[in-house]
C-alpha cells in the first residue's frame, strides 16, 4: 500500500471485524517536532498478548490455526524505516488502540494520501458504527463526530446523493484547509 490513509482504512477494517461499535481515528502532524502520529481506537473484542505478537510479526510462530494478515506488519516496517514505531495496546473484551508514528519529513515516508476519501468510505460503508475522525496539523485541526449528523438525518441514509455531496464537501474542505497551511 502506497498511502498511509490506505493503512488506516485497513486497520479500521480490523476494528470493524473485531465487532467494534465506536471507532476513533486520529491523525496528528507536528511540524516543529517533525513527527506524524496516527491512531485507531476501537471498542471491539480486543486481543491477548499472544495475538498481539502474531498480528505484529506473523512469521515468528509456527501455528497455522489462526488467520493473520499482513497489514499491521507492513505498516510497522514502514514506520520503523522512517525513525518511527508502531504499538498495539489491547485488552480482551475492552478494545484495541493501534498507534503509529513516523518522522514526518523522512524521505521514505509514504504520503498521507486521500484522507477525505478514506473517511468517507468508512463512514458511508459502515453506518452502524459510531465514527470520530480527528485530523490536526500543529495547532489547527478538525474533529468530525458522526453522531449529530446521523441524529439530524434520522432515516435518510448516508448514501443519499444529497447527503453524500454534503459529507464529501465537508471532509474535502476541512482536509484541504489543513494541508494548504502546512508546508509539504
Amino acid at each position, binding site marked *: 500500500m502506497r498511502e498511509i490513509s490506505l493503512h488506516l482504512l485497513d486497520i479500521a*477494517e480490523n476494528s470493524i471485524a473485531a465487532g467494534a461499535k465506536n471507532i476513533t481515528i486520529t491523525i496528528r502532524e507536528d511540524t516543529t517536532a517533525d513527527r506524524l502520529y496516527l491512531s485507531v481506537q476501537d471498542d471491539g473484542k480486543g486481543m491477548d498478548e499472544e495475538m498481539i505478537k502474531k498480528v505484529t510479526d506473523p512469521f515468528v510462530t509456527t501455528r497455522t490455526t489462526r488467520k493473520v494478515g499482513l497489514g499491521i506488519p507492513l505498516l510497522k516496517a514502514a514506520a520503523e524505516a522512517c525513525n518511527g514505531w508502531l504499538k498495539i495496546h489491547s485488552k480482551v473484551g475492552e478494545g484495541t488502540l493501534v498507534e503509529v508514528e513516523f518522522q514526518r519529513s523522512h524521505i521514505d515516508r509514504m504520503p498521507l494520501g*486521500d484522507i477525505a*476519501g*478514506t473517511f468517507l*468510505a468508512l463512514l458511508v460503508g459502515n453506518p452502524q458504527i459510531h465514527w470520530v475522525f480527528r485530523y490536526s496539523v500543529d495547532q489547527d485541526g*478538525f*474533529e468530525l463526530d458522526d453522531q449529530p*449528523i446521523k441524529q439530524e*438525518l434520522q432515516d435518510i441514509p448516508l448514501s443519499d446523493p444529497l447527503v*453524500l455531496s454534503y459529507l464529501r464537501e465537508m471532509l474535502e474542505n476541512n482536509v484541504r484547509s489543513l494541508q494548504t497551511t502546512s508546508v509539504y
Partner: protein
Amino acid sequence: MPTIKSLDDLKRIREEALEKRKVKTASGQVQVIVGMGTCGIAAGARDAMKAILETIQNENLEGVIVTQTGCIGLCEKEPIVQVVVGDQPKVTYGKVSPEVARQIMQEHVKNGNVVKEYMIQV
C-alpha cells in the same frame, strides 16, 4: 479543536431528501457491496468505492445502499463489488477499477443491465 458544525444544512438536506422520496417511491432498493479486506484495499477498493459514491452523487441515484465487507476469499480478483437489485440474485464483479465501477453503476444499478464482461463466479 473546532468541531464541524453546519447542522442547519443537514436539516435542509433531510427535508429535500424526504420530499424526493415522496415523488420517487420504491423503484426497488439496490445494495452495492465493496470488498474492503486488506487484499481489496491493496488492489484499489477505496478508489472503486470512491467512484461508486461519486456516481451516486453525480447521477443522483436514489435508494442505493453502499456497504463494505471483508475478504471473501477471492483475493486475486479484487477489487470485488457485488450488486443486489431488489430481490434478484446477487451479482459479483471482479477487478473493479474506478472506470469499471462507474460502468457498473451506470449500466447495472441505474439501467438494470448486468455488465457481463466483469462478472465472476463465486
